[in-house]
């Protein structure tokens, strides 16, 4: 295999050119003040750092985390049963069912968001004053990202060793307990992938909050977009780095919680075995 190692060279070039270098350029830009990318007219400045004291940034970040949290929660509550039912059903063509589920994703996401906007603006729904509310933003975010939760969970459930479930059933464990003790713990990998895949875009997006939030729901993505739109790439870079760090922290938290749960389960299982207990 060693002789194929050189094949990974393009990957490192790509990584250095398109990931690491831009991060350092962004970091350098946080200490400059210039119009857009006019480096020739740049002057040293800490104006970007002075702006970080603005409470609106932290409020918008909090709003983003709240929207992302509820989106993940609802996507999980809806997505898990759907993935479970499809996976454990005796349908002949499960892929067709999944295909139908992702059918709306074949159209541009912006079109779907605008469709919701039009729907919420119709005479019947306009009376509910959905537009401009956090709830409407969360609802549309859920409809946009639900497939990202269903697919990883479904994949894990499909690949699960069904003999473990049979063993549990043979040992007389009730179905609900089998689910809690066997199926769910074994599907946690898919759940955490789904959580990350939904959480990331939900926390950093700006199109939904801008369109459905009618400017009244300001998320961190909206702040970022507005700053870059005004050609302030310096403050925009600092905000981007800050948001990236917050998101990395949140993901580490999710991964940490996941491994903690796994460890606790393993400990519980080994202690049960030691005591000669069953599942």
């Amino acid at each position, binding site marked *: 295999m060693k002789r194929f190692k050189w094949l990974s060279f393009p990957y490192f070039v790509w990584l250095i050119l398109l990931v690491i270098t831009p991060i350092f350029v962004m970091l350098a830009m946080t200490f400059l003040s210039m119009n857009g990318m006019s480096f020739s007219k740049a002057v040293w400045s800490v104006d970007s750092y002075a702006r970080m004291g603005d409470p609106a940034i932290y409020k918008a970040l909090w709003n983003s985390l709240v929207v992302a949290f509820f989106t993940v929660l609802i996507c999980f509550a809806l997505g898990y049963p759907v993935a479970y039912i499809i996976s454990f059903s005796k349908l002949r063509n499960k892929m067709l069912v999944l295909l139908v589920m992702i059918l709306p994703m074949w159209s541009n996401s912006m079109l779907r968001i605008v469709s919701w906007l039009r729907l919420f603006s119709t005479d019947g729904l306009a009376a509910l004053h959905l537009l401009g509310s956090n709830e409407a933003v969360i609802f549309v975010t859920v409809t946009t990202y639900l497939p990202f939760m269903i697919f990883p969970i479904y994949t894990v459930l499909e690949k699960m060793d069904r003999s473990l479930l049979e063993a549990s059933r043979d040992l007389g464990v009730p179905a609900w307990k089998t689910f809690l003790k066997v199926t769910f713990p074994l599907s946690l990998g898919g759940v955490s992938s789904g959580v990350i895949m939904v959480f990331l875009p939900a926390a950093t997006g700006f199109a939904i909050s801008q369109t459905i939030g009618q400017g009244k729901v300001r998320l961190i993505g909206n702040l970022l977009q507005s*700053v870059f739109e005004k*050609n*302030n790439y310096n403050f925009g870079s600092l905000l981007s780095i800050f948001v990236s760090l917050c998101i990395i922290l949140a993901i580490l938290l999710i991964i940490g919680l996941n491994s903690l749960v796994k460890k606790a389960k393993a400990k519980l299982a080994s202690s049960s075995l030691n005591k000669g207990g069953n599942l």
Partner: protein
Amino acid sequence: MKKAFIIVFSALIAFTVFATTVLATPSNILYLLNWGEYIDMSLLAEFESTYHCQVVLETVTSSEAMYQKIAASTTSYDVAIPGDYTVAELHEEGLIRRLDVNNPDLPYLGAYKTSFSDDLSSLIYEYMKDEDGVYNDYFMPYFWGAYCAIYGTRPGEEEVEAALKEKGFEAFYNRGLYSSPKKIGMYDTARWILASYLLSQGLDPNITDRDGSKDDDLSPAMVEEAKSKLKEAHFDEFGNDQLKRNVATGSLDMCFTQLGDFFDTLFLSLEEGKDIEFNVAVPKATAAFFDSMVIPSTCQNYSLANKFINFMLNPEKAYQNAKAIGYSPTLKSVVELYKEDARKGAYYFGEEDSKGSLLLSDFLSRYPVYLDPLAGKKDAVYMLEPKSIRYLTTCETIFNSLA
């Protein structure tokens, strides 16, 4: 033999494709940077056939993007149509070229000193000058207008009209003017929000402090004042193109916008056969704007660019463009053409006996601001001046305080 035939045949096809592609592409290309749906496409086609060239059109959605595209010089645009303060910025930084105003073959360009509406010319003389004087030979106004309010005229909305006429933009910030709750929309451009607030206070929208100073950034006191007033205003919706439609359909009682937006909505509503239950008010204290044709300093086809601007300044072409786009014309000659057509009994929309048709004379008498956006408002008309990135970011901070 068979192999040789395939090779020769393939080479022939490749050569034909290459040759036709190269020959079909005119060597005379004009790169035009404009806003979306802001030029009559048939005029572009006419220009292409007259001057045997190809016009490549690229559009932007904000003044900042327009500036950035010209400054970045990654594409050498031959003609761009930025807004007034972007023109001032571009001129100050030497990013636009002087137009060929002395070329006798370009008569409409050469007549620039006397061709534009008087009110517009006054604004140009007041705002578009540097140490060498007015630099009108660097830009040719394209369309113009003023910041205004579109409001509903349905039963129960009378208070809005009265408030706008009496208090101007204060009608957006003083809920005490109404006996019942009103639904008010505000444009989601941070700088416009601040401008609307300052205008509502009878202040110059370019000041950075209450004392009237104009610094690099807004004063902390001004930022706090704007933040608290914005919170108190409780706008029901922030948006852009959607606002005018919402007033037209009755979802909003009024919204802050630009004059062109009103005429755009009016035409659309007429086309859809809807009742016109909205109107426009240009308050006494307002700000005017105009977009202009300029030639960026990186242009590759200076001669063709000048010909294009001259072509668009031809009264007939400018009239055709104004009718297609619906924004207020900048040329005096176009204003006269409108009046002449009105006298002849031309229609603004539809034809004689067609349902919902509107005579041009009725349109002009109902909406005099179309041909004269600043009619009777010469005392308190401002224009938005170029501002620093720090100022614009602080405006965003004020808007973001609503988060």
